[in-house]
């Protein structure tokens, strides 16, 4: 294995959050982003070919080792406590924010047909949704958007990995 690939593998392993190419460039002098992205790709393929219990996934713009989804029942035995699940109200609210961001609460209320204050508060506390700013209209309502943690929790490279609204709509017709 090329030394640089080995270094990157070690960096990803030691990093607590998904490791970005920019961060690697900072650490490895004399490299550029393009090169690092290629090396990331090489590593991803190596792990794919190996077919082991650990995958290298692109998450929230960086790379992170994650266990294979179908092995979850074994890992859950290792973990204490149950995974924190989101309620249906929270999931619907989160979906609206993810697709329509940046948006104000009134817009989420309108789409879901209910007052989403409670669900929104929970999502803010879980750091899945954040305050992006305030809208420049009377009352200066707060504008919301999803966080990096949202991408991490939902195993997403970026927002474009979500099916588009059109795809979801076509599915229903």
């Amino acid at each position, binding site marked *: 294995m090329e030394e640089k690939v080995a270094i990157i593998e070690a960096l990803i392993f030691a990093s607590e959050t998904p490791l970005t190419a920019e961060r690697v460039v900072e650490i490895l002098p004399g490299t550029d982003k393009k090169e690092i992205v290629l090396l990331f790709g090489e590593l991803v393929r190596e792990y794919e070919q190996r077919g082991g219990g650990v995958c290298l996934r692109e998450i929230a713009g960086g790379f992170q080792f994650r266990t294979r989804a179908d092995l979850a029942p074994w890992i859950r035995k290792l973990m204490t406590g149950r995974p924190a699940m989101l309620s249906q109200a929270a999931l619907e609210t989160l979906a609206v924010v993810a697709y329509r961001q940046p948006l104000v609460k009134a817009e989420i209320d309108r789409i879901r*047909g209910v007052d989403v204050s409670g669900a929104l508060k929970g999502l803010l506390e879980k750091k899945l949704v954040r305050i992006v700013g305030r809208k420049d209209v009377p009352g200066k309502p707060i504008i919301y958007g999803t966080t990096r943690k949202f991408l991490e*929790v939902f195993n997403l490279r970026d927002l474009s990995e979500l099916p588009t609204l059109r795809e979801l709509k076509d599915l229903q017709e």
Partner: protein
Amino acid sequence: MSYEIKLDIFEGPLDLLLYLIRKNEINIYNIPIALITEQYLAYLEMMRSLNLDLAGEYLVLASTLIHIKSKLLLPPDESEGEEEEGEDPRAELVQQLLEYQIFKEAALRLENRPLLERDVFTRGAPGEAPSAAEEEGEAMIEVGVFELVAAFRRIIAGFDRPEELEIDAEKMSLIDRINEIMEMLSEKQQMTFVELIGDRTDRRRIIYTFLAILELMKLRMIRAYQSGPFGAIRLFLAVEE
């Protein structure tokens, strides 16, 4: 004493309406309003008799349905051109239902993704990373408005000398102070209440600082922590970058 039970059978009036449409195998573009209104009201009655917490939104939609029904009963408006048919009074509701249906599907897709700490796991990292305060080894408790008010009183009491009579040309607004505090916090990660006030004893400045902190806490943009009773109150940014 009455007990209210909240059962999340339906996620809201639109959800109930979609359920009725599906149950009756109705085409969403051609909803028989009379039938659906009747069933919808019957459900509300049932929910009420079960003493379920009936949110006001359910009643709003009930009135919308009745309004649509009454419109449909009226003969078409003569004044409108013959070719130009009046808009279907159901159109707006149908649009809303279709939109909501799409987001319900989107929520389902989200839930079915491989979720962190449910389906996929990272290296030995359950739960959240410790906050800056925890890393310092200082146990912090989150404080509320009352602790802040107490701290405010202590600070005010510290400035017992009479305020100098000076016409203060410096105009200060709450918004400015909020922005200043957010800037300082994003630079220093955490600051104590006293640090934020600074060594200027201008009463107005102290009050504005206090109000700004309260406003920011209300908006959940900052969090306040204290290491113990009468300990220094530390403020942290609550918003992720």
